[in-house]
């Protein structure tokens, strides 16, 4: 793509090296655990060994005898301040520390505060807790049985484990089409409970100054402003009003949605610091992170498609059971209890669809976070992409052909989906065609036929997904009532160098580079000279943070708008300096010049200097602008991925031979960063496709609560990714960008699953739930009698 700005300016489209990498690569990042304050105390947490039990007693005597132990905090202690419960983002309630019952294994039971991290760790072993174990509800399908225990008996009048019912679409119309359709297909699809497993676990340093009555919280959070407001709302009654709270989110080692929720550990540390008047640090260890922090996915979906006999999809019907654990601590916009799951009609033109979902409580950790996806989009994409392949198999036509036949056409955008979204722009055909060309689709199909004849197992899988990101327009989108706009404040110094601050918070996405490029594009100030700051609620403008691929669609747009306000001011100053009228001026990146007389020009640096030294009378001095951007619509990035797998008939191992990813995220700000995002996303898509799942036994014991057993893919398992792109700008975003951070995580799992099913489809296999482990495939090979 061509760039409007020179390499020196480094605006949109340049592959600028990431500004933040120097400090990350040299070990000079500043993460929460790097923060050390004078007199800081350390906290560790006693956790429940049982999934469901009554707490009969907590005996802290031995722990308190250990030199260096200052306090052991229990739920009863917090209850004195009414801090033992807290609200979740979905307006459910969650225990900070239990007073009488534990609801999942690894739940917080008590906290130890000590002068040293290791003393705290030793002390938790000395806290004796007596439990009365109860039979847990682990299987979500049994959760609604009439004889299942009512887990949330703390809620007045609660008589079952049902959390909510949600539905969208035309139920009767859909039923009618299914009744009369030429062809219908149905599959039970499970998208398993997984964990974001970011390299940095969660933690905080809470530091309360009793004299100033001021609380500073250094926190692993993707949304610092929202956290400050939540703390003020929850703890305002004990004196922590919002101006006395500063939340700082320093460098973050990966968030992926897992650092959106408020975890009990944060609240206990804040309460402890408030009561003791000293800084308290709490950092989870790996197993705590994996076993207790918010999970993602866990949707049991019954999916159906109806089509005409010539392969035109007529309707989609999906019924889902969602396992939320013991509380609804999902991280969705308030009005969307199942997130953006209703994007499940995907890239396909169908007039009718219906989807419904019931969420239930079980004795498992709470969560339902949007793991590198815009609120349940991964679940939706998996459902529709698997089902399109299922329909192709039923009709015995090529899955690519079926997709072409049903894609929403380029000229039909903006497109109104059957489930209520207005897709902004797309060209699905172009993306799939490019992917097929790049991988040599027709030759691969020939090779597959030859191999099949010889008994070898090879499969080709396609995923032509559509995302819905950039939440969101204020008329529909809020979290706890706060609208989901985002913000940018630009301050240009007299010498023409700038600092810009945002309401978002990078966790590795490269905001310090890409935001600078957006401003450079609009103002012509070199990106190198634009400092970007996020994450400090005392300095940054208010915003809802970074998740759901929303930073570019919201804060990126705010940056453009704020910069354009400054360019308007620059034009006025330039007209004044050049003694011409504004209409006579023309802009090229970095300067205004007089139409027809390009030698009569003022650079942006000269203009900014004048704003401080020689500004027109009657004009406000200085060169600053702020913009709060409320997006008119969401953005709809898309892509087509093709995966080729070979299956080892002896071991059942799935080997990814090739994987081509064609993405379209609209205007690309930094091609190198986009490619990096795709590579990371594909690997996090490979993870649940072949390896990751949190497994519980019937007692609620987690059976893979360490990295020995929870299989995060490493470089060894990761195949070579081949990436390419098409570019269909968003018509409503000021620079046409759509957001790309999550596309690959959403699009990759169905491509891989489709490839494996394709390799085995001639044996009668129609679906395999992810993760498709070697053991699962091995078992199928034996059942079908084709094992070697």
């Amino acid at each position, binding site marked *: 793509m061509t760039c409007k700005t020179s390499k020196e300016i480094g605006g949109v489209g340049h592959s600028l090296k990431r500004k933040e990498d120097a400090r990350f690569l040299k070990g000079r990042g500043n993460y929460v655990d790097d923060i050390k304050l004078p007199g800081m105390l350390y906290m560790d947490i006693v956790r429940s*060994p*049982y999934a469901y039990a009554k707490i009969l007693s907590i005996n802290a005597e031995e722990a308190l005898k250990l030199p260096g132990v200052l306090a052991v905090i229990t739920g009863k202690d917090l209850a004195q301040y009414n801090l033992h419960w807290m609200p979740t983002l979905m307006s459910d309630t969650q225990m900070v520390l239990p007073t009488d019952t534990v609801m999942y*294994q*690894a739940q917080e039971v008590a906290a130890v505060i000590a002068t040293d991290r290791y003393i705290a760790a030793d002390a938790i*072993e000395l806290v*004796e*807790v*007596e*439990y009365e*174990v109860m039979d847990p509800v682990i299987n979500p399908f049994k959760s609604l049985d009439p004889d299942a225990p009512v887990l949330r008996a703390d809620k007045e009048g609660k008589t079952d484990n049902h959390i909510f019912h949600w539905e969208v679409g035309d139920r009767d119309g859909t039923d009618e089409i299914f009744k009369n359709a030429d062809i219908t297909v149905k599959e039970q699809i499970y998208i398993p409970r997984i964990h974001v497993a970011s390299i940095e676990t969660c933690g905080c340093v809470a530091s309360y100054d009793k004299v100033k009555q001021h609380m500073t919280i250094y926190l692993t959070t993707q949304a610092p402003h929202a956290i400050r407001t939540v703390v003020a709302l929850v703890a305002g009654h004990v004196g922590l009003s919002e101006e006395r709270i500063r939340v700082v989110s320093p460098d973050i080692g990966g968030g992926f949605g897992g650092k959106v929720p408020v975890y009990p550990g944060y609240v206990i540390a804040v309460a402890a610091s408030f009561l003791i008047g000293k800084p308290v640090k709490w950092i989870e260890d790996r*197993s705590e992170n994996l*076993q207790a922090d918010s999970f993602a996915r866990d949707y049991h979906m019954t999916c159906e498609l109806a089509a005409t006999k010539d392969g035109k999809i007529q309707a989609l019907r999906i019924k889902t059971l969602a396992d939320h654990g013991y509380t609804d601590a999902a991280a969705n916009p308030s009005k969307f209890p199942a997130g953006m799951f209703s994007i499940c009609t995907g890239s396909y033109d169908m007039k009718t669809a219906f989807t419904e979902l019931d969420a239930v409580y079980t004795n498992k950790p709470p969560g339902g976070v949007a793991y590198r996806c815009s609120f349940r989009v991964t679940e939706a994409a998996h459902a529709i992409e698997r089902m399109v392949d299922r329909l192709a198999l039923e009709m015995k036509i090529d899955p690519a052909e079926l997709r072409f036949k049903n894609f929403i056409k380029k000229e039909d955008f903006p497109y109104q989906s059957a489930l209520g979204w207005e897709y902004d722009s797309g060209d699905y055909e172009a993306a799939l065609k490019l992917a097929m060309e790049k991988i040599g689709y027709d030759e691969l199909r020939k090779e597959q036929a030859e191999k099949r004849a010889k008994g070898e197992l090879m499969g080709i899988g396609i995923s032509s997904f559509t995302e819905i990101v950039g939440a969101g327009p204020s008329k529909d989108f809020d979290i706890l009532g706060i609208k989901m706009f985002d913000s940018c404040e630009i301050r240009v110094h007299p010498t023409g160098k700038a600092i810009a601050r945002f309401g978002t918070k990078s966790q590795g996405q490269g905001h310090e580079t890409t935001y600078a490029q957006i401003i450079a594009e609009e103002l012509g100030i070199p990106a190198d000279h634009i400092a970007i700051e996020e994450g400090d609620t005392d300095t940054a403008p208010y915003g809802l943070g970074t998740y759901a691929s929303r930073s570019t669609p919201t804060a990126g747009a705010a940056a453009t708008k704020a910069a354009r306000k400054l360019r308007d001011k620059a034009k006025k100053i330039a007209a004044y300096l050049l003694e011409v009228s504004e209409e006579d001026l023309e802009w090229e990146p970095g300067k205004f010049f007089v139409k027809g007389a390009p030698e009569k020009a003022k650079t942006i640096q000269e203009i900014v200097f004048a704003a401080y030294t020689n500004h027109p009378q009657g004009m406000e001095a200085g060169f600053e602008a702020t913009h709060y951007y409320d997006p008119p619509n969401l953005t709809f990035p898309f892509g087509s991925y093709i995966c080729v797998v070979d299956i080892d008939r002896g071991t059942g191992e799935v080997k990814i031979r090739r994987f081509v990813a064609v993405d379209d995220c609209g205007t690309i700000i930094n091609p190198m960063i986009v490619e990096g995002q795709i590579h990371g996303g594909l690997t996090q898509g490979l993870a649940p496709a072949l390896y990751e799942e949190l497994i519980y*036994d019937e*007692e609620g*014991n*987690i*059976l*893979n*609560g*360490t990295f*020995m*057993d929870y299989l995060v893919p490493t470089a060894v398992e990761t195949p070579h990714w081949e990436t390419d792109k098409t570019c269909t700008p968003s018509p409503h975003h000021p620079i046409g960008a759509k957001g790309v951070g999550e596309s690959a995580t959403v699009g990759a799992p169905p491509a891989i699953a489709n490839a494996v099913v394709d390799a085995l489809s001639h044996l009668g296999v129609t679906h395999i739930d992810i993760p498709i482990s070697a053991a699962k495939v091995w078992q199928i090979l034996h059942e079908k009698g084709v094992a070697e």
Partner: protein
Amino acid sequence: MKAKIDKKFEVEQDIQTVWKFISDPHKVVTCVPGAQITEQIDDRNYVGTVSLQVGPVKTSYKGEVTIARLEDDKYEMEIIGKGTDTKGKGNAGMVLIGTLSKNDRGLTEVINSMEVSVSGKLAQFGSRMIVDVTDQVFGQFIDNVKNQLKAIEEAQKASGEGQAFVPPPAQEAKPLKALPLLFSIILGYIMRLFGRKPKS
């Protein structure tokens, strides 16, 4: 989480001697590594402790042992044990079914099936090792039974036929550390990789 293991072994002693030994909780419990009977409630119910360490997780279970079934005519018995860690780290249960028979070589064959269920910290951090640990513990139990039976036989021989039976001194209950077992667990794992059954 549950682990079920079946084991068969044979001893030279006659079926009556073996039955007498194996159906006496006081004797048989001393053969379980790390186990101890601390109190007898009645002739079928006992209170006892089992200590076990797997890696960094130390547990000490206290609980009840019940003889659920004792069929002298069939030489069949079932023992059920249930315990809770004294520090609240979890609980464990065990069902042991033992059957004796005389085989065609005139030896007494002992068939044992043991199902162990573990909840809490051990399951949380050691689930991948539970089966192997159970297997090793079971193996040590069998060795102890064999040794004790041998000791009884020798004691009987020394004091002459028909003399009153003097039981050997009970072994002292030491917490079983699974870490020293690690080597044999790894060895067993490697042998299974190559398709060989490890010796039990």
